[in-house]
Each structure stands twice: as structure tokens, then as C-alpha cells.
């Protein structure tokens, strides 16, 4: 910035244009006047005459002055004059730049870079060393101070990260090499982050801190888990109007495009953050196509929610004996299945033929021996369907049980009654689930017991097909793949007749896990691994701006790290673990930052009375006057000579 007394110029080099004004004066003077059109009967006498010496008529001096003044005002205005600009930065000491580099910094990233570049060029001009703390959680060790000019290159290459801004946990260690009398420029993303207060205190102790707040509000989008999926839009803006949320997916032609536009509901303001719920009220066919939600006009990873398995509603077909009368509803196995599945899935009920026409993702057969012989059902499973079967008295009584097709294991005829009135044993509990199975991590309630079950014939692969077992080691749930699909068998009933599993919360969770593992868009390639994995492999990774980048370079993420949310090494994106596809979304709860003891720069523009607008308005007014004057001149001349 160039300072001339109380007047400062943001881009002083434009003032060179003022030197061109005298030249402009001469050019304007020499401009030929517009010719007049005259009706003259004696024109014939003029034919063939040559102009002796063409003479340009001079523009009146006041018109010239008006034009030159207008252009001068334009040049001055373009140079960004500021009346009494407040001194930039605070001190003259070594410059430390703290750059919040999480997703919240993404929307106005270029402005931030420009602001830092300005500070760097100033520090370079003053010969001060500079250091830059990039708060994306990857900074390590003490910050090196180097000539300010060398930081410009890395700064230009810097991109915001697809996770929250993170500061090094120990400010003292990071600032070990810092000289005293620091001048700190903190490019804040406007949100509060862990360790922020600690860093602010440490920096305030070493120098004066200038905080550059972000331009505009920050927005975060989050998926609200639940029966009825919804999005939660948080913003630091207090205004009444909120941007829409765009649902983007693949249309039937295979082109990614905006499929729907969701409007936020009424806002709830709390602690400076306005929260709005965005219900996802879409038909399930459309919802299954959605790949991501994003806040309109907000290029930030935090404003993007990637859709994963949890969002897609499965179509589940229930087939069973539902002839029980009203009084016996609690005895019907379909009743428990319905109650467990209805909140999270779209249920279809009917005969097998009707149900297959609706192309369900999952078919549940409750105690239906003989139905497995239908070739249509086998085809459906081989094409990727998930068939869940429950046994029951009818299957136990079936004579051809050992020949029953579409079962993961061969069943032994006759049931096993372990807790009945005529049995010796106690009802069996359920063994905790294996950590690598589809039910990994589910908590087994102690009071869930099984009184009767159908046993599998011993076979070499029985153990590998069992995904849940009773405390005595007998299988409770077995699974096998058939073609591209799978067969799952519960060795007990879906009602409370043989087991109280159906009335425990575990039943709901187990069904949920199974249904979620069903494929919605059945991939052509057969699934290679069916076990729950301890690692999540990135399939698709977002950058800080919420754009999709190549996931090839990213390494698999350990499940423990994955559970902690996006972090360095685990950027927001879509991860695959075995059969499940899970999204890691950056957006979450936000809290506005609180700055005590720091000077806050108002906007990225230097404060002071900016005269640019006034000067340009003045130039416009002068040009208007010039137009009026020219018109008046031309009119006067015409009248005089007409």
C-alpha cells in the first residue's frame, strides 16, 4: 500500500496511468469535430473542389477539462484509494501465519490465499522472516522461520483438507524456534476447534495477534440417522433464509445430475449456530439413486453428505402364513418382522409370484417349507438377492426337510427342544458375535434365550457358514452365498414361540445389518469377501472443496480410526468394508470461534474509508455532464448553421 499523507492506495501502480493524462489532453484536442449536414442549393458549384487545408476544430477547453477530470477520477478510483487506512497488521516483527485449513476454510480459500500473500509480500519488503502454521493436523515439530518470499510458493499450492481444522496439540513445542515480538496473522475459518484457545493464549503471549475472520457464514451438513432419514444443516449465519440442499445422483440415463432440491425446515438458533432439519422426503426409487447431498453454492467438504448404505431404503418382501386371526396377531411371525423392518425399509407382502415382480432387495420367508423349490426364487437369489429364512413348526414337521433347497446348510429333521417343559436343559443364551462377522459389535442382551431350534447336519463348512451361534456352539444364524446372492437362515422362529429373540432389540439390529448388506445396485462382479473387515478401503475421496478426487493413493483406514471421523489419512469420502459401503462425512456440529485478546480484522479489505466507489461515481457523473455538454454544443452548432 502506498501512503500519501492520509490517503492510501491499495494498488498504487495504476496511478502511473495519470501520467498519460497530458497525452490524452492532446489527443482529445485534436479530435476532429463531427461534420454537419447542410442542405445547400449551390452544391453544384462546389463539385470537384479540393479542401485547401483541413483544419480540426478545437474542443472547448471546459469540455476537455471535464473529460480529463473524469478519466483522472477513474484512474484514481481504480487505484483503490483509502482515506486514513488503519495500519496493517500490528507489529513490525517476524510474521507468523496461522492458516486454518479444514473444510470450513474452503469456500473463500482464494481470498485467504490472497490475504496471506499480501502479508507475505509486505513482510518480504520489510525483510522480516515468516513462518506458516497450516492447521490441517499434519504439521509436526517446531515451525521453521524463513524468508517470507519462500513461503509464497507452498502457499499457492496449499489446498484445504477434507476434515476439520486441527492445531498441533502442543503450541510450546511448535513455537520453539519462534523469535520474540511476533506479528501473528490468523486466518480463521470462523469455527471453534480443539486447542484453539490454547494456541491463542500462547500466541498472544509472544506477540500481537490479528485475526482475519472468514467472509460469509460457514455451513455444515450432516446426516441424521434414524428411521426417517434427514439432513441437518448448521450455519453460523443468523439470517432467515437458508440455501437449498441439492440431491445429486445418477439419472436413469446414467448421467450424474441434480435429482431433487430439498428445502430446509424452520431454523433453531442456539449459541450462534442456526440449525435446520432437511427432511429427505423422496420416493425410495429416487432416493436409491442419490450419491450425494450438497448445500447449494457452498464449495466445502463439510457441506457435502455422501450417501451410503444407511441411506438407501431396501425393498423387503415378507412371505409367510398370515392367516392368523386378529386375536392371534402376536403369534404370527410376520408381525415381528413387520415391526422390526417397517421403519427402515419398504415392505412388500404377498405371494411369491407377486413379490418377485416388485424386484425386492430382500425376501424374508417365515417358516415356509417347499417354497424354496420355485425356480424363480432361485434365479432371483442367483442374481444377487438376499433370502432370509426363518424356521418354525411347519418346517420342523416337514418330511422332506433334508432335501429342502435354498438353505445355507442342510437341516436335520426334527427340532431340538432345549428349554421346553419336557426338556432337561435350560434355554440357551446367545454367544457374543464374532468380531469379523456381519453382526460384529452388536451387544447381546443377557436375557435373550432360545428354547427350540432346528439343527444343521454336521458338515465341514458348517463352522464357516455360521455367523451367530448359541452358547453351546450350535448355529443360530447361518449364511451361504448362491450365485451373486446369499441365503441366510435363522435356526429359530421369527415369533416368540421358540425364542424370545424376536422381542429383543437385538432382533431389530440383526435384521437391519442383514438387510443393509443386501445389494441395492447389484454389481456384476461377484463379491469376493463376505466377512466384516477391520479395515475400510476408500472408494471415493473428497477434497476440502467437496469435490471428488481419486481414491487410489489413499491407504485403507483402520476401523478404530474410521469411527473417529475424518482425520488426516482418513479424508471424507466413501469407504468400503467388505460388503458394506459407508460414508465418512466431514460436516458435523459446529461452534463459532471466540476471540479474546486478539484484534479482529474487519473483512479482508483493509479498513478505512474506501474512496473507490465515490471516485467512480464522480467519474460517471462527469461523463454524464460531458455527454450533456457535447449534446448542447452539437445542438447549438446545428441551430446556428441550419
Amino acid at each position, binding site marked *: 500500500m502506498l501512503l500519501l499523507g492520509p490517503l492510501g492506495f491499495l494498488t498504487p501502480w495504476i496511478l502511473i496511468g495519470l501520467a498519460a493524462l497530458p497525452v490524452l489532453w492532446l489527443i482529445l484536442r485534436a479530435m476532429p469535430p463531427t461534420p454537419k449536414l447542410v442542405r445547400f442549393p449551390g452544391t453544384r458549384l462546389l463539385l470537384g473542389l479540393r*479542401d485547401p487545408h483541413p483544419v480540426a*476544430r478545437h474542443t472547448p477547453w471546459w469540455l476537455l477539462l471535464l473529460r480529463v477530470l473524469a478519466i483522472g477520477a477513474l484512474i484514481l478510483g481504480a487505484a483503490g484509494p483509502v482515506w486514513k487506512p488503519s495500519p496493517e497488521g500490528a507489529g513490525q516483527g517476524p510474521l507468523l501465519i496461522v492458516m486454518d485449513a479444514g473444510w470450513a476454510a474452503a469456500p473463500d480459500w482464494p481470498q485467504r490465499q490472497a490475504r496471506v500473500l499480501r502479508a507475505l509480500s509486505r513482510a518480504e519488503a520489510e525483510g522480516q522472516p515468516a513462518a506458516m502454521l497450516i492447521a490441517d493436523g499434519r504439521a509436526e515439530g517446531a515451525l521453521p522461520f524463513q524468508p517470507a518470499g519462500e513461503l509464497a510458493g507452498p502457499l499457492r499450492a496449499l489446498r484445504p483438507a477434507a476434515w476439520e481444522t486441527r492445531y498441533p496439540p502442543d503450541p510450546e513445542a511448535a513455537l520453539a524456534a519462534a523469535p520474540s515480538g511476533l506479528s501473528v496473522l490468523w486466518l480463521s475459518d470462523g469455527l471453534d476447534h480443539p486447542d484453539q484457545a490454547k494456541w491463542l493464549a500462547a500466541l498472544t503471549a509472544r506477540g500481537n495477534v490479528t485475526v482475519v475472520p472468514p467472509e460469509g457464514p460457514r455451513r455444515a451438513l450432516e446426516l441424521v440417522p434414524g428411521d426417517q432419514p434427514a439432513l441437518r444443516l448448521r450455519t453460523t449465519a443468523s439470517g432467515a433464509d437458508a440455501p437449498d440442499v441439492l440431491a445429486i445422483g445418477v439419472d436413469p440415463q446414467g448421467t450424474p445430475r441434480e435429482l431433487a432440491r430439498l428445502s430446509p425446515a424452520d431454523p433453531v438458533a442456539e449459541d450462534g449456530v442456526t440449525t435446520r432439519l432437511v427432511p429427505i422426503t423422496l420416493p425410495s426409487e429416487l432416493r436409491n439413486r442419490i450419491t450425494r447431498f450438497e448445500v447449494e453454492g457452498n464449495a466445502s467438504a463439510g457441506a457435502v453428505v455422501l450417501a451410503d448404505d444407511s441411506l438407501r431404503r431396501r425393498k423387503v418382501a415378507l412371505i409367510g402364513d398370515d392367516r392368523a386371526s386378529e386375536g392371534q396377531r402376536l403369534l404370527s411371525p410376520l408381525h415381528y418382522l413387520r415391526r422390526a423392518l417397517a421403519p427402515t425399509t419398504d415392505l412388500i407382502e404377498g405371494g411369491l409370484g407377486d413379490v418377485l415382480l416388485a424386484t425386492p432387495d430382500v425376501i424374508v420367508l417365515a417358516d415356509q417349507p417347499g417354497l424354496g423349490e420355485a425356480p424363480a426364487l432361485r434365479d432371483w437369489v442367483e442374481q444377487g438377492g438376499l433370502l432370509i429364512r426363518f424356521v418354525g413348526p411347519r418346517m420342523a414337521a416337514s418330511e422332506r426337510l433334508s432335501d429342502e433347497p435354498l438353505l445355507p446348510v442342510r437341516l436335520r429333521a426334527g427340532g431340538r427342544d432345549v428349554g421346553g417343559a419336557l426338556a432337561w436343559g435350560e434355554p440357551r443364551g446367545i454367544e457374543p458375535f464374532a468380531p469379523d462377522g456381519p453382526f460384529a459389535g452388536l451387544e447381546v442382551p443377557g436375557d435373550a434365550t432360545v428354547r427350540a431350534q432346528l439343527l444343521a447336519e454336521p458338515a465341514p463348512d458348517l463352522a464357516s457358514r455360521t455367523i451367530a451361534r448359541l452358547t453351546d456352539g450350535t448355529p443360530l444364524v447361518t449364511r451361504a452365498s448362491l450365485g451373486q446372492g446369499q441365503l441366510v437362515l435363522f435356526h429359530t422362529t421369527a415369533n416368540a414361540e421358540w425364542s424370545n429373540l424376536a422381542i429383543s432389540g437385538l432382533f431389530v439390529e440383526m435384521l437391519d445389518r442383514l438387510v443393509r448388506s443386501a445389494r441395492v445396485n447389484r454389481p456384476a462382479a461377484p463379491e469376493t469377501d463376505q466377512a466384516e473387515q477391520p479395515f475400510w478401503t476408500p472408494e471415493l475421496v473428497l477434497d476440502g472443496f467437496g469435490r471428488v478426487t481419486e481414491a487410489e493413493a489413499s491407504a485403507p483406514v483402520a476401523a478404530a480410526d474410521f469411527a473417529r471421523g475424518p482425520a488426516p489419512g482418513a479424508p471424507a469420502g466413501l469407504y468400503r468394508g467388505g460388503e458394506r459401503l459407508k460414508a465418512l462425512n466431514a460436516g458435523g456440529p459446529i461452534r463459532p470461534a471466540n476471540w479474546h485478546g486478539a484484534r479482529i480484522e474487519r473483512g479482508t479489505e483493509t479498513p478505512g474509508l474506501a474512496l473507490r466507489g465515490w471516485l467512480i461515481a464522480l467519474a460517471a457523473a462527469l461523463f454524464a455532464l460531458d455527454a450533456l455538454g457535447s449534446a448542447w454544443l452539437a445542438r447549438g452548432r446545428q441551430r446556428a448553421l441550419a
Partner: protein
Amino acid sequence: MSRSAGQLRARAEAATAALPALMLSAERLAAALVPGAHGQRRAGTGEDFWQYRPATTGDTARSIDWRRSARSDAQFVRDREAQVAQSAAIWISAAAGMDYAGSAERQTKRDRAELLALSLTMALLSGGERVALAGQPPRPGRLQADRIAETLVTRPTLDRDDDAPPVEALRPGQRVILFDDFLGDPQPVLDYLARASGLGVQGVLMQVLDPNEEAFPWRGAVLFRSASGAIGHDTRDAAGLRSAYLARLAERRETLSQAARTAGWHFGTHDTGAAPAQALLWLWSVLEG
């Protein structure tokens, strides 16, 4: 400017209002004008005695002047001097350029030419002459002035730059008065003069010009267009053309003046910035002489 025969006539009368003093001061002119009939200095139909001549074969008995014949042996026939009233034909150019007026305060050249023509007509008619517009039969009487005024006013302006006087309307013994700016092609006028002198017709060329056409006051860049727009001349420095234009105008006048002298005609100029009476007086004197 709205034009009507009544207005033209009123203005012509206003213009001629200055004439009586003029005529009084020029007694000879007025006296010569009053008779109206002009002796042809030869025998013919008339009222004045011309000569006695011996009767020849073919003279009827009724034509013999017996009183004179009684004084001698031969028979004499009394001849009268042939008398014919003077007729004047007036022509005003209808070219588009005649509608030009250099400023709103001045009359157009055509208005001024019509005013002069009608004033002249009225003066001639009151002198007993027969007057007509070129191509029409000349008639005497005050009503003729009304007719001529009517014709002048209703006559449309041409959209051409040139208008030539009708050669076929020339009659021997006529006096012809041509009003024009003579800024167009001069050749038709020169041909007309040659033809007129061949027929023994005498007359006057009256060049009516606007002061702008005489002074050429323009400066700077000007796009000149003729009245009809057919001819144009663009210049960057009109002031520099002034002397050349004035020289050409003088040359044009000299050509016309020379041709008029050769044909026994008169050539006069009139400026619409000047009073019409001046031109009228000159016309009067020229027609009389």
C-alpha cells in the same frame, strides 16, 4: 409556411404599395406604361391613322376612303397603324432548390420570386398589358392577377434540382421574365436564350439568391447536399472553399450576363435579404427601356 393565393396577393399588394411613389417619381415611365397598346409602325388593324395608299386590286370598295379619293383621280385606301397590346410571360423555376431559405426569418427564394412576379404582374396589368405565366394565354385585366396568384400558389415544387423554362411557349413579340437561382445546369437557359433571340423575344433573367448562397458563411467539416439530395460534396474545411465558391458564382453570373447581352436580354440579381422593391424597380426600368 402556409401558402394561399389570398396571402400571396396581399403581400404582393403590400410590395407594390411602395410602387406608386416610384411611378410618380418616374413620370415618364408611368406615362409610357399607361397606353397599353403599342403601335407596330406598320399598317394593320388599329385605331390610329397610318397612311393613305393607292388602292390596289383586291381592296374592297368599302375600304376606299372616298373623301381622300375625291381630291384626286386615283382611289386611296386609308390604312391604320397596326396596334397590338404588349404581352409579358413570366416563368418561375419550380426546382427544389428554390424552396431554400438560409434562416427562419428570411423568405424562401421561391416565395420571393413569386412575390416579385405577382407585383410585376399587377403593375403590368394595371398598365393595360396582358400578362400570363409562360405557356398560358396572356390576358389583360385585374382578374388575371388573381388567376396567376392562384396558379403560383398551387403549383407543386419539383423534386429535381433543375427546372428549365419551356422553349415551346415562346411567342414572337413577347417579353419574358425568368425568375430562377440559376444554380443548376446553365445549358438549358443558354439554349433558351439563343432560341428567344432567334424569335426576337426579349426579356429579363432575374437571379434570386439567398444571402447564404452569396456569402457562403460555413466553417469546419460540412456535408453539403443539394436540395433534392442528388448532388453532394463533403468537406473538412468549408471556410477554405469560400473563395473558390464565390469565384465560381461570379463566373456563372458572368456567363449568364454575357449570354443575355448577346440575346438582347437583361440579367439582374436579387438577394432575398434585400427589400423586394429594389428588384421591382430594376425590373420595371429594364422592361420599360
